[in-house]
């Protein structure tokens, strides 16, 4: 068993991610089986819904300890990235604890509605393989009501009322707050970069 695997986290909307990989010539499998996940060359952790529900589903499938021990490239997308942190303020949920820190709620204002929904740029891009070929002119599609802190793991950040991590990486664990599968050419580039990690 090898190839790219998308973890079936139970939420809807795995199709768009699968199609995005398909457009890059990769037929990704969708699975929630620990053995298949461990054996995959690359693992994508998607996530739509709430942190509490997603963690509950991972625990029910016995996947939390499995995910923590993965050594191949792992990409958390949106909520999937937030789950990599210690905690989320969303439902005061204990998450996977792979990255340090707490995911907090974005504060709405009259000029800044929450969820943050729309196209935004990245700042502070680092020289990371995930960001190869991208610059501050590239726009990405964000949909989120919670945001991850900045830290040593931050590879790029975004500003929406406050600064938060948009791209994170610590060893083999990567995460993006935006939806690369819905971010046109710039999103495809990030996915392509991830597929190039070994």
């Amino acid at each position: 068993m090898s190839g790219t695997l998308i973890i079936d986290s139970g939420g809807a909307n795995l199709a768009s991610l699968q199609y995005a990989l398909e457009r890059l010539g990769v037929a990704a499998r969708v699975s929630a089986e620990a053995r298949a996940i461990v054996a995959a060359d690359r693992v994508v952790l998607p996530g739509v819904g709430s942190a509490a529900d997603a963690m509950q589903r991972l625990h029910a499938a016995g996947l939390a300890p499995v995910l923590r021990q993965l050594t191949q490239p792992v990409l958390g997308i949106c909520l999937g990235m937030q789950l990599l942190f210690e905690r989320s303020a969303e439902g005061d949920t204990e998450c996977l604890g792979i990255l340090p820190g707490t995911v907090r709620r974005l504060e709405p204002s009259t000029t800044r509605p929450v969820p943050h929904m729309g196209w935004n740029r990245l700042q502070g891009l680092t020289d990371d393989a995930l960001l190869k070929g991208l610059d501050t002119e590239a726009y990405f599609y964000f949909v989120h009501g919670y945001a991850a802190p900045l830290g040593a793991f931050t590879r790029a950040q975004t500003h929406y009322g406050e600064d938060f991590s948009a791209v994170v990486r610590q060893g083999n664990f990567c995460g993006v707050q935006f939806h690369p599968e819905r971010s046109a050419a710039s999103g495809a580039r990030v996915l392509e970069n991830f597929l190039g990690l070994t």
Partner: protein
Amino acid sequence: MRFRDHRVVGDIMTLAQRYRDEGADELVFYDITASPQGRSVDRSWVQRIARVLDIPFCVAGGIRSVADAEAVLNAGAEKISINSPALSDPDLIDALSRRFGAQCVVVGIDSERTAAGHRAFQFTGDPGRTRESGRDVLEWVREVQERGAGEIVLNCMGSDGVRQGYDIEQLQAVRAVCRVPLVASGGAGAIEHFSAAFRDAGVDAALAASVFHDGVIAIGALKQALRSAGIEVRP
């Protein structure tokens, strides 16, 4: 009636790819006859669109249950938009938001001025069945947010299809009570109408159909003009 005489504007796959290439930020597919006819959207096209489209898209029309929404989202749509069914069964908003998260639950509101003020209308896809819901628009905007709507599309029916500009005054009133993303709809006829909606009504997005379908406004030129006017948009 401005909502009559809907036209077939072309194959949706071709249009979807064309708008994507021209720089559209999001596409909304309205099956406007679904609710009046009491049927759901045919889902096979949603999947075909999702396979080729790499920007977000929303499906509206005939979503009356969590199962309807789930099928559309599983087929690859980013968001679902409900309008008439939300007015008939407001609890549907709560149920969808709980199940899928507020970020993919859009509530569309067809608003028209009546003697009693602006009211939300139902079944506007069928002139024979269009009816006033009895709900005040601002009250409805507040309620749908409490129930978990993650985005509101305000379609000002008086302006729709006539290309005289968005109803800025009404959008401003709705903006004042809207804490989630607000999308202006109905009335776009010129580039200045878009800039006015962003600048004067503070909307998060502007939606248009006929001016793009008819080639009156090119998306690239529109975005360039908005940028020149100091409104940040994705190129």
